[in-house]
């Protein structure tokens, strides 16, 4: 097996070499606008061949990095090891920056993280579009001590009266879901949110 070569580089856009390797469909996903999120693309080579790549994103002002996408060349022997090496690099970079967590998302046919220490996060309540078809994992860079609540987004198209929404959340029987459900009602008197929150997918908007 070819040993993983040193990290070639990291950059903030998908260049033509990576685009050719990914193919048009994946390239479009990797090039998706990320708004204010900070993004980094990590690529690794096996010899002269591009063998693996990782796209990471992070919300500004937060202390977590997310592995948003991974890719490896299935026709190159050792590409798995190159990918592992890239993930190690991402984890070390996060730790150096002061992050306390590295998250990982994988879509239907993606591999889950192979690294030790990633734990599967609780399945979210199916609420906003981003809660469908995505599995989530987290690696706490130091062992976490808190109990993870389940995630609950403001539901699409919901203008439910507080009492109705509340009773639904209450039946879920979890303090976290009660509170996050209620945050929706708290925000319900602030004008036209299609303008205020332009980043929310209009086809699955919270506000329609």
């Amino acid at each position: 097996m070819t040993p993983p070569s040193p990290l070639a580089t990291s950059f903030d856009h998908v260049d033509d070499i990576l685009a050719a390797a990914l193919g048009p469909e994946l390239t479009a996903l990797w090039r998706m606008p990320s708004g204010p999120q900070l993004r980094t693309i990590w690529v690794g080579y096996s010899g002269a061949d591009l063998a693996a790549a990782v796209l990471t994103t992070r919300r500004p002002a937060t202390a977590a990095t997310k592995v948003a996408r991974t890719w490896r060349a299935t026709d190159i022997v050792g590409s798995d090891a190159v990918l592992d090496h890239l993930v190690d690099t991402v984890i070390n970079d996060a730790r150096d920056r002061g992050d306390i967590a590295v998250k990982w998302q994988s879509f239907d046919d993606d591999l889950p993280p192979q690294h030790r220490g990633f734990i599967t996060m609780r399945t979210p309540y199916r609420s906003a579009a981003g809660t469908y078809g995505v599995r989530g994992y987290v690696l706490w860079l130091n062992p976490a001590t808190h109990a993870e609540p389940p995630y609950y987004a403001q539901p699409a198209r919901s203008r439910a009266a507080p009492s109705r929404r509340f009773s639904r959340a209450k039946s879920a029987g979890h303090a976290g879901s009660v509170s996050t459900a209620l945050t929706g009602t708290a925000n319900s008197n602030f004008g036209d949110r299609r303008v205020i929150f332009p980043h929310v997918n209009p086809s699955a908007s919270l506000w329609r």
Partner: protein
Amino acid sequence: VALRGSINDAAGAAPVDVFLDTDGPALLETFPDGFDRKFREVLQADSLRQALSSDIAVHRDRLSIDELATRIQAGDLALLLIDTQLMYGYAVPYWVLAHSVERGLVIIDDPTDSHTWGETWVDAHEIPMSLESLDRMVAWGDDGYRGVTFIRHP
């Protein structure tokens, strides 16, 4: 405060307390003078009266971020009125849930994942944030008033 009353009704033995260090109406900055604004001012004043006559504790001093972290560490949940500028790149008032503390950082859940930015629930869930960032984020308006609602751990 009606919302807070609803939480209080539900939390039962784990009642609610509120920190809001502004005397005027909150979150009405975008409403010009006129009926829409007056109407909401009346509702807010009525909610405050209800809160003051209930077992909801209403604090008009400014909550420190250290105190916020201490109470979350002790098991309380907190709804934070935030300015989204830091995380979204533009300013909107919004609520997030702070539920845990890890290594001195507060862990929040944000009920919005920004789908058109490629976000999923994985971005909006279990967000660690430093106290310094929280101190900037948990403030709204020209005066930077701070609104926090605790759901006390029973």
